[in-house]
């Protein structure tokens, strides 16, 4: 979108990310509103995956709860024919998919989602305050990802390191999620 504005010379309205500047830290956890990123919701049948993987520059994972990442781009398995692709390196995954002739649906959702980083030795305990899944390293290893719930809302959770998670939620829910996480972080032991 930024690129389109440069090309046409049209000045766009100033955007204010939903959680701009929100940060919180507790004894064992730090919460960070992550930078805006390009995101697409990708739906595709098995037969289209090779072409889409080639266009996106990473291999779309086929195993439940797994992810793939390469060069600042991330593909999260959400369902048997559904992925969330996130690009934090300034790429345009929507444009990459548009070149693919095989059947697929790619919808830009960059501004629908907001991402929150939860890091530190108490990160797992903080998320377990609202997420009913088994988030132990055995049950939810580094690289694991899942659509799930946190408190009253749906999130997509991705474990980026042993003590670091990325929480993706809809922007209108982000205030609730951030506040819930802040409360949980205060109670989280290492």
């Amino acid at each position, binding site marked *: 979108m930024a690129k389109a504005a440069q090309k046409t010379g049209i000045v766009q309205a100033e955007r204010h990310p939903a959680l701009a500047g929100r940060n919180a830290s507790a004894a064992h956890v730090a919460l960070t509103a992550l930078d805006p990123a390009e995101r697409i919701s990708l739906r595709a049948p098995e037969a289209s995956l090779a072409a889409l993987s080639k266009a996106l520059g990473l291999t779309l994972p086929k195993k439940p709860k797994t992810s793939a990442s390469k060069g600042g781009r991330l593909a999260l398995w959400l369902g*048997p024919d559904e992925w969330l692709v996130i690009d934090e390196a300034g790429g345009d995954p929507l444009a990459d998919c548009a070149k693919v002739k095989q059947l697929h649906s790619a919808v830009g959702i960059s501004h629908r989602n907001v991402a929150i980083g939860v890091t530190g030795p108490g990160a797992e305990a903080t998320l377990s305050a609202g997420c009913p899944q088994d988030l132990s390293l055995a049950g939810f290893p580094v690289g694991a990802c899942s659509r799930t719930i946190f408190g009253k809302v749906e999130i997509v959770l991705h474990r980026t390191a042993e003590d670091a998670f990325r929480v993706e939620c809809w922007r209108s829910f982000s205030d609730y999620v951030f506040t819930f996480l802040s409360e949980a972080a205060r109670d989280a032991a290492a």
Partner: protein
Amino acid sequence: MLLIRCPYCEEERPELEFRNAGEAHIARPTDIAAISDDDFEKFFFIRQNPKGIIYERWRHVHGCARFFNAVRDTVSDKFVMTYKAGEPKPSKLPGVSK
């Protein structure tokens, strides 16, 4: 909390991620405009509601979002087994003696 095995996620997941979607294996009439009101009532409204083993549709709505089928005991609330949508009704159930 109940743990429900999603046949698409291939693991047990917390019940909060799921939603019940009514009785399973109800075939939609091929020519729905041609059937009588009585037959439509049977298809659309009449359900078994058994005491004991029931075959249901469930949806992993806050997970992979897929519909699947589950066999559940309405007395104990225990899930006997789950299987993918479109698969036939299992003839043998694990751990059930009737």
